[in-house]
């Protein structure tokens, strides 16, 4: 074990009571075809604890109205709860100011906001955008659309056989045409934790802003946007024990102020005449129309729930789960782990010799085990490893060591069926 991993492990050891935590998640009591649910698809979406469900119910039963509109009691209550959620997110990711936190519908929406708001204004013909091989389609396709529209070019950071970015190659991609960098913090397909702080520093020496896709990082580790010094950071609520339909774009205030709006409509304006519209200040400039108020408040509650447990404790416990699962899986003959980076979040992509991932997924489902099978919206990663698809077990802090064992037993069952 490396020193870094030991350091990660140290704080959690004594008091992580997974059984007590599991009791907070009603869905974990489900049985699937008579077998207890073993939910290992957390990288796709996580489950919601009772305090977050309760908060949504309280909002809908006693606090709901539209925000930033009425002077009546409910509108003021909803507005203050919505803005309170923004403050919770700001503290959670250590943004300087709450106006640097923009509520979006998710990570994809947040990235598209940056593409339209920043990219379409500041990126032109012949300019270059650096992305990485690991990117999710959501951090590839918007930039391809922009490149096509503007005549800009996309450069791609390669990876090694372990699934780690080649930072030396990344450095070589910079030139005077480089105008933007997009990179994911943690790979959804492989689990690789990228050295984003160092890579952001390198981009800044060239005066290039960086967007970090943090959808898979925020649920697993303490993220401090000031420490990273990223220019933009995007993530989704539903991977963080919150509701679907809510996400966050963090952006440095100075950049957000220079950007053009993404969507036009109500709330994002100060004044409108048919001759001229004056846009609202940030963050409202980027929140056109009625926002997902309930979902934002739910996300605030999720952030409170996770903070009470502690992101460091969560990261350390998940590291134990990953280490145990990796060790157990490595003992299975005919099973190959895809993605063996030195620093990983709790994601295990694997291939079973002679068995297509879809068959793995269906047979594991018969054991009550939920894994993701497919290309994980990361086809360039699949192409790099020359596989059409993988099976992926992705863990959360409410998964138990017994569930790791259930997965291993499930894989043995699959192997028996196909023997």
């Amino acid at each position, binding site marked *: 074990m490396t020193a870094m991993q030991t350091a990660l492990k140290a704080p959690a050891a004594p008091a992580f009571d997974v059984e007590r935590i599991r009791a907070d998640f009603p869905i974990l009591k489900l049985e699937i*075809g008579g077998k207890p649910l073993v939910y290992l698809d957390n990288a796709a979406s996580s489950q919601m604890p009772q305090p977050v469900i309760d908060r949504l119910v309280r909002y809908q039963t006693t606090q709901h109205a539209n925000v930033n509109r009425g002077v009546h009691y409910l509108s003021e209550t909803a507005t203050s709860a919505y803005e309170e959620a923004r403050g919770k997110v700001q503290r959670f990711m250590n943004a300087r100011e709450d106006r640097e936190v923009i509520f979006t519908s998710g990570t994809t929406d947040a990235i598209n906001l940056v593409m339209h708001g920043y990219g379409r204004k500041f990126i032109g013909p012949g300019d270059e955008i650096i992305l990485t091989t690991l990117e999710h389609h959501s951090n590839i396709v918007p930039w391809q659309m922009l490149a096509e529209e503007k005549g800009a070019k996309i450069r791609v950071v390669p990876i090694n056989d372990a699934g780690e970015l080649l930072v030396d190659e990344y450095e070589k991609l910079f030139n005077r045409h480089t105008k933007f960098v997009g990179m994911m913090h943690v790979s959804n397909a492989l689990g690789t934790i990228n050295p984003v702080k160092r890579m952001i520093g390198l981009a800044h020496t060239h005066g290039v802003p960086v967007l970090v896709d943090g959808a898979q990082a925020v649920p697993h580790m303490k993220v401090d946007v000031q420490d990273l010094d990223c220019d933009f950071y995007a993530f989704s609520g539903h991977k963080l024990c919150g509701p679907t339909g809510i996400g966050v774009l963090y952006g440095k205030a100075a950049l957000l102020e220079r950007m053009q709006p993404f969507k036009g409509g109500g709330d994002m304006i100060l004044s409108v005449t048919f001759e001229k519209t004056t846009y609202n200040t940030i963050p409202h400039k980027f929140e056109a129309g009625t926002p997902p108020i309930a979902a934002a408040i739910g996300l605030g509650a999720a952030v409170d729930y996770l903070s009470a447990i502690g992101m460091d404790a969560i990261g350390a416990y998940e590291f134990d789960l990953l280490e145990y699962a990796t060790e157990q899986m490595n003992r299975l003959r005919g099973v190959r782990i895809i993605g063996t980076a030195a620093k990983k979040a709790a994601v295990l992509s694997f291939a079973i010799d002679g*068995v*297509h*991932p*879809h*068959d793995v997924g*269906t*047979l594991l*489902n*018969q054991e009550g085990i939920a894994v993701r*099978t*497919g*290309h994980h919206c990361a086809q360039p990663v*699949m192409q790099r490893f020359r596989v*059409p*698809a993988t099976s992926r077990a992705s863990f959360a802090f409410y998964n138990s060591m017994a569930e790791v064992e259930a997965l291993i037993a499930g894989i043995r069952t699959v192997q028996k*069926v*196909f023997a």
Partner: protein
Amino acid sequence: MADPRALYQEVILDHNRKPRNYGALEHASHHAEGHNPLCGDHISVSLDFDGERIGGIAFQGESCAICKASASMMTVNVKGKTRADAETLIQEFRDMATGKLDLNGHHHIGRLVVFAGVRDLPTRVKCAILPWHTLHAALNSVASISTEAEDDPMHASIGDA
């Protein structure tokens, strides 16, 4: 719900291990490629006619066990059939996979009944149907189909699966 475990029964596993009519057919008069971009499955079907009837048929590709076994059993079942009989079987297979075929009624499904279980696994219906759609495309001289493309001649019906 039928026990979905029944899907992975010996006959399907056997056709997956030892697919029949696997490979390319030389001098095929009809050929089509089928893709399922959602899972990366890819299959090609080629055939020729001996008079009115399908004389030779072969398939190859990369796919899951359900898709490969379905393709293998399909080739065995349609060889020697007229175009009209093959089209009837395609329709019946598709109806069975989507739960619309009355298995107690009149049909020509025979041993293909082992695939009936996919109707309870909506995400796997396309795996079982892909070879049949590709056969349909080959019979109708459509060079390539995709389970996600709008021009898939049978897309509408996979859609309700």
